[in-house]
């Protein structure tokens, strides 16, 4: 399992280094072993540097920057070890329009190989969908599906 872990770690780290700068249009990102000597037990830290900024602790990232960093990491793991589907509940809520567009472009590209289920209130994200399910509670307290037409 030592080989399996270190292979997965290297591959995810490499992908993270590609996906992050694509979503942020620059900057760098990496996973680092906290204790290099002890591959089998060491914890893993996340290091990011936003374009034009100093590398600061993750805690001082903004709400949108944190969400976009998390999306980059989840998608990087997904690229190395895809699961049958990816289900995201309003992850685009903290993003501004430009970042929503970059997120959508990445989802669109990955959706040729993987299945995405996205819960969203964002009209730009809705336009991305191949299938749109509307949920309504016309009858008090009871959820039903309706077909949704996106107005052009």
């Amino acid at each position, binding site marked *: 399992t030592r080989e*399996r*872990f270190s292979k*997965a*770690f290297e591959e*995810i780290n490499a992908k993270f280094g590609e996906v992050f700068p694509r979503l942020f249009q620059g900057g760098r990102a990496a*996973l680092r072993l*906290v204790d290099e000597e002890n591959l089998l*037990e060491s*914890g*893993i*830290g*996340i290091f990011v540097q936003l374009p034009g900024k100093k590398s600061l602790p*993750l*805690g001082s*990232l903004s709400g949108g920057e*944190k969400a976009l960093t*998390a999306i980059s*990491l*989840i998608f990087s*793991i*997904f690229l*190395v*070890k895809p*699961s*049958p*589907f*990816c*289900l*995201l*509940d309003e*992850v685009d809520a*903290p993003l501004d329009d430009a970042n929503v567009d970059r997120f959508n472009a990445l*989802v*669109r590209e990955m*959706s*040729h190989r993987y*299945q*995405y*289920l*996205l*819960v*969203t*209130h964002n009209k730009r*994200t*809705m336009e991305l*969908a*191949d*299938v*749109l*399910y*509307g*949920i*309504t*509670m016309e009858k*008090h*307290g*009871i*959820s*039903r*599906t309706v077909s949704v037409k996106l107005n052009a």
Partner: protein
Amino acid sequence: MKLKKLELIGFKSFYDKTTFDFSAGVTAIVGPNGCGKSNIVDAVRWVLGEHAPSYLRSKVLEDVIFAGSDAAGPLGMAEVTLTFANDNGNAPPGYESYAEIAITRRTFRDGESEFSINKVPCRLKDIAELFLDTGAGARGYAIVAQGKIGEIVEARPDEMRMIIEEAA
């Protein structure tokens, strides 16, 4: 494996039997506040074996059964079935020859849960094993609950290790 269908009945606000057919690419789920979108996410995590009420925004497991509203009285049972198509070959061990894999979970007011795979009763452990190391388990990296997107970035180094190990 590809996600093919989700069927809910009596689960949270889904009183009537409701079916979602999934195809390749992107499926968006939309609707006003409180209409039941996140209840669908809870249903997926529940059928995949989620057993802690707090991960299902509930106090006790029975809270997932339709509790009643102005339009209808409470139900006694909740049932969810998630069906996967086994088309692209990476079927879980032991299921290579099946064209589809349908996972079902049913619970009653007394708290008992019954699981089955392709209508054959099984244990929670069997379901968890189906998705071991694929990230699509109840708490895997492939399902992100509402408001929790920032949490993966705040994970401690030992927690991040477990996430990466799941993908190894």
